[in-house]
């Protein structure tokens, strides 16, 4: 069987300027910090980052905002990272950050939809608001819905609590969040694992993400303080 275990540097080798990257976690809880650190080190620019939020300065996606590597951020909430507003409002085009805000449930479902082979879905969320601008409103069963499209990325950076050498992964506590959907919606999926175990060590009843979705496994992750 193909060896999926590698260093962070090897795992992210394919990420280029302009790549789109999904990052798991919620306020950096469940975000693979060692993969983010490797990406900061590598310095790839003009990235599109898809994540629930912007983390906080110094944690999670916040590190990529600080390093100026993000061109477009697709997220539901950026309020706990003041640097996002600063960079959205700057006049300097090299520093300028475009931020696309998506309701949290819609963001999760758009990612799930891509991974599940759906062409989109109808949601009542956002009807009558600025979220509806430019979107098709479809009336079904007497109720208005927005047509939301699936969302994919070139890469996904995920945080696993326990991962076996095939890539089967479990997520502890509230680290699960967007990780399982992102595993299904990116071309190349990297799991930063807190613990790597032998195949068969994880009870199949407890596997959340199947190893079939995982391309690379990087050890050395841990539960980080926010």
């Amino acid at each position, binding site marked *: 069987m193909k060896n999926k275990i590698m260093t962070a540097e090897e795992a992210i080798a394919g990420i280029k300027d302009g790549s789109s990257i999904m990052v798991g976690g919620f306020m950096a809880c469940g975000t693979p910090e060692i993969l983010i650190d490797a990406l900061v080190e590598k310095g790839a620019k003009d990235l599109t980052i898809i994540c*629930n939020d912007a983390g906080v300065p110094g944690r999670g996606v916040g590190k990529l905002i600080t390093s100026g590597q993000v061109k477009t951020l697709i997220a539901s909430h950026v*309020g706990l990272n003041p640097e996002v507003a600063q960079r959205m409002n700057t006049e300097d085009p090299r520093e300028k950050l475009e*931020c696309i805000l998506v309701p949290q449930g819609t963001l*999760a479902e758009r990612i799930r939809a891509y991974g599940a082979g759906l062409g989109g879905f109808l949601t*009542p969320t956002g009807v009558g608001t600025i979220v509806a601008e430019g979107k098709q409103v479809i009336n079904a069963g007497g109720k208005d819905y927005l047509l939301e499209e699936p969302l994919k990325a070139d890469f996904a950076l995920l945080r696993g609590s326990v991962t076996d050498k095939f890539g089967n992964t479990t997520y502890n506590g509230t680290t*699960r*969040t967007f990780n399982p*959907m992102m595993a299904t919606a990116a071309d190349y999926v990297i799991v930063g694992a807190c613990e790597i175990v032998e195949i068969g060590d994880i009870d199949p009843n407890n596997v959340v993400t199947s190893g079939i979705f995982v391309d690379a496994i990087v050890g050395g992750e841990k539960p980080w303080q926010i």
Partner: protein
Amino acid sequence: MADLKARIATRVAKELKDGDVVNLGIGLPTKVANYLPGDVHIILQSENGIMGMGPAAEEGKEDVDIINAGAQYVTINIGAMYFDSATSFGIIRGGHVDATVLGALQVDKHGNLANWIVPGKMVSGMGGAMDLVVGAKKVIISMLHTQKGAHKILDECTLPYTAIKVVDMIVTEMGVMEVTDEGIVLKELHPDFTLDEIKEATGCRLIISPDLKPMED
């Protein structure tokens, strides 16, 4: 100020029934859990993936893998479950949350809600609020009646909507209001205020309920 917020939280807590699945917003709404009557046990849903959330974690005993949607370390109750964000918002949009309690910048007589963005001010994002107010069976707004005297309860919201026609009830330090097809009905008035005072603090017509009651602390 602190006791006004306690008053609001106490009154909101009375709306929750034993066994209700409830999502509490950040800030004042979070306090509602502290004022539940002893015989009422609710199941707290946290949109980042908990059903059965417990109180905040004690200092020194935090599990850094367990946070609430406001990024605070929390505990879980016996019988709790974790899930991913797609499942979480399936629970929310699917109508499986009995009540959500949120703050507001503005609410209008149609039940339209604005609580996520002020044009020209720092953008923070809607997070899960748009899904919550559309999906929860009952939407309770808990807030101070005015913003330093400026009306927050209006004929029409002037700020961008979070959602349209979603608010069921508004609880402030002045009273308790229900949103109906006819407009906003004042059901309870706090004894600290007169009818004229609450009408003056409200930017739309208040329909006075025929069985208006005093709001209790």
